[in-house]
């Protein structure tokens, strides 16, 4: 496989932004271009991820393309997925040997609507969505199953909430009322508007653009079944398999940037990927405190790369998820060393 690295990243998250998607993305895309000195015409491929259901408009990504300035025309593609999958599509293009650089970006602005309810429309439209179960309700269903089967305990949930910083202490956690029984507010995500832009480069080019490229040593993604009656809600086989295929277990992981929007998801993912429940090094940021649908996954990759640039990590894991209850998962391992 051809060696590819993350050489620049820029991101922004706020609970509620008044900027349009274009206004949000222009500074971020400009920042990664300025940092690498690349002009749009120097970039081999551009790929983005977003959702029309957040923008409330069909073909919404067409407008946002203005943030890139595609004049003259560019080689470009878009996934209706988290930007982490746009990152994957770009990595594939590098493997074809036809590009040396790529721009990847994604964004989401859930604040104009009720994301909790919008996410109901992602469920099977014939059998599940007509019941309008919102995202926290579905998460509560899974949490109840995990607790009843003794796979996790409420104390673990409390400790996870403390580690993620949604509460200061166990006492504070247990003082909270139930939000979606058995989940409290501290177990559930706060949604945020935001965006991420990133530049990737192949070996030979990456060293020119970045002092310490964050090399992709493995990347894989998998999807599980959708229907709750078919899935084992206490397991995430797709995350387990993606971690194996991405080579997570080939060496020590210094930081794991998990796209866990619920405490239950954090615990489940650690179990499936064989990561310690109480890591030595905390994540640089937690989606549970600011989850930006369509961008949180790509932001995990950006944070993992920053960990490598800062010297916090030599080997970092980034994870992205999509669909209800961790249905689809992507795992990427970044390393400070190219070998």
């Amino acid at each position, binding site marked *: 496989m051809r060696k590819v690295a993350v050489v620049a990243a820029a991101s922004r998250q706020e609970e509620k932004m008044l900027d*349009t998607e274009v206004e949000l993305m222009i500074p971020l895309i400009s920042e990664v271009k300025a940092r690498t000195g690349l002009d749009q015409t120097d970039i*081999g*491929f551009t790929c983005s991820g977003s*959702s*029309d*259901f957040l923008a*409330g*408009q*069909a*073909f919404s*990504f*067409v*407008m946002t*393309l*203005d943030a890139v*300035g*595609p*004049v*003259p*025309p*560019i*080689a*470009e*593609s*878009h*996934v*209706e*997925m988290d930007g982490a*999958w746009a990152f*994957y*599509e770009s990595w*594939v*293009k590098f*493997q*074809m*040997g*036809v*590009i040396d650089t790529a721009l990847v970006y994604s964004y989401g602005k859930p604040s104009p609507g009720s994301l909790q309810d*919008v*996410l109901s*429309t*992602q469920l*099977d*439209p*014939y059998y599940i*969505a007509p019941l309008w179960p919102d995202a926290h309700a579905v998460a509560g269903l899974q949490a109840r199953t995990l607790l009843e089967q003794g796979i996790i305990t409420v104390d673990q949930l409390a400790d996870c909430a403390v580690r993620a910083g949604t509460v200061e202490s166990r006492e504070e956690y247990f003082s909270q009322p139930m939000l979606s029984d058995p989940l409290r507010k501290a177990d559930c995500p706060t949604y945020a508007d935001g965006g991420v832009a990133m530049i990737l480069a192949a070996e030979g080019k990456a060293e020119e653009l970045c002092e310490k490229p964050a090399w992709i040593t493995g990347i894989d*993604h*998998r*999807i*599980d*079944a*959708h*229907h709750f009656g*078919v899935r084992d809600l206490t397991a995430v*086989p797709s995350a387990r*398999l993606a971690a194996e295929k991405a080579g997570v277990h080939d060496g020590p992981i210094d930081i794991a940037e998990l796209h866990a929007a619920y405490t239950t998801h954090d615990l489940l993912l650690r179990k499936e990927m064989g990561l310690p429940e109480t890591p030595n090094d905390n994540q640089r940021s937690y989606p549970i405190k600011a989850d930006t649908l369509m961008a949180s996954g790509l932001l995990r990759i950006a944070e993992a790369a920053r960990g490598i640039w800062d010297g916090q990590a030599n080997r970092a894991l980034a994870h992205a998820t*999509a*669909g209800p209850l961790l*249905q*689809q998962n992507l795992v990427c391992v970044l390393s400070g060393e190219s070998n």
Partner: protein
Amino acid sequence: MGTGGELAAVVGVGMTKFSATRGDVSMPGLVREAAQRALDDAGMQWDDIDAVVMGKAPDFFEGVMMPEIFLSEALGCVGKPMLRVHTAGSVGGSTALVAASLVHSGVHKRVLTVAWEKQSESNAMWALSLKQPFQVSINAGAGGYFSPIIRQYMEATQAPELIGCMVAFKDRQHALLNPYAHLHQPDLTFDQVVESPMLWEPIRYSETCPSSDGAAAMVIVNEEEADKAKNPAWIHAGAMRSEANNFPGRDEVNPLASRECAEDLWNQAGITNPREEIDVVEMYVPFSWYEPMWLESLGFCERGDGWKLVESGATHIEGGDLPVNCSGGVLSSNPIGASGMIRFAEAALQVRGMAGDHQVEGARKAMGHAYGGGAQYFAMWVVGKDKPNA
């Protein structure tokens, strides 16, 4: 950006019957119908597939957010990688190119790709008319958007007024040769096309595409696998380009992104004279006049001469030397998200000699073409009966 890497070929093609309402199947049933036919054609089982790439147009068309999520089981994706592409009207073509890239890159050996739309589940006009703050609403559908551009073409080339009707009548005749086509109008006459109501001057009702339900699927494999197949369609070239919707000096009739995409495509395929070297074209023509416009943009003739090709009958399957849209084209079937993939899949069927009654005899090289947005997104490929550079 070319195909690069390993050789790839189409060894399975599947399509559904296209119609206004496929009330007999759910969304999972629809995509599975096309996918199963592609697998049968390839002589494969679901387990043989390494990864799935799905494409469709806006999620608002069915009212399901990211529907690939709930179609995981229907497409046999459980435990596999799945990607969902969305690049406006060109999406069906882009989806095929992303699937091909998974093989060209050496990441996977056997990839299933599916594109679909089930417009009857929702209301496309509603989906396209959601008002946005601080944005000009078109409010007149795609025809209202493209009609001024078509008028500009007619003005610049002084094309005779009925060229568009000739294209529409030709594609509806072609559709009679394709059992999957949505519109089968055996009694339609040229005069009826001309006399049909004017919707968006100069676009008449009969010069527009229908709204369809339907899906298309392909199995794309690497060289080792394709060598085992009896009639693979080898991918000779693939290209995508996008440009902004609005900028000073933009040529909307013949967009720069279209010309650059075609130039890249012909270079990759080693084609210097498309008119001579391409045997059959499946082109994205949702409004009749786009056939002469794209013929010029893609380099099949000089600028201003596209309508002359149409008028001479060159693009008709009977007697034409450059048959265009032998399947009936988008003008006869338009499940939006799938329409681009149908073009790509029909090109593959032609070079495999499997296009049935709409087969162009001896077709060795075919082009598949798709566009989207305000004629700003382009996806194209060339497939051949022979291996590239053979």
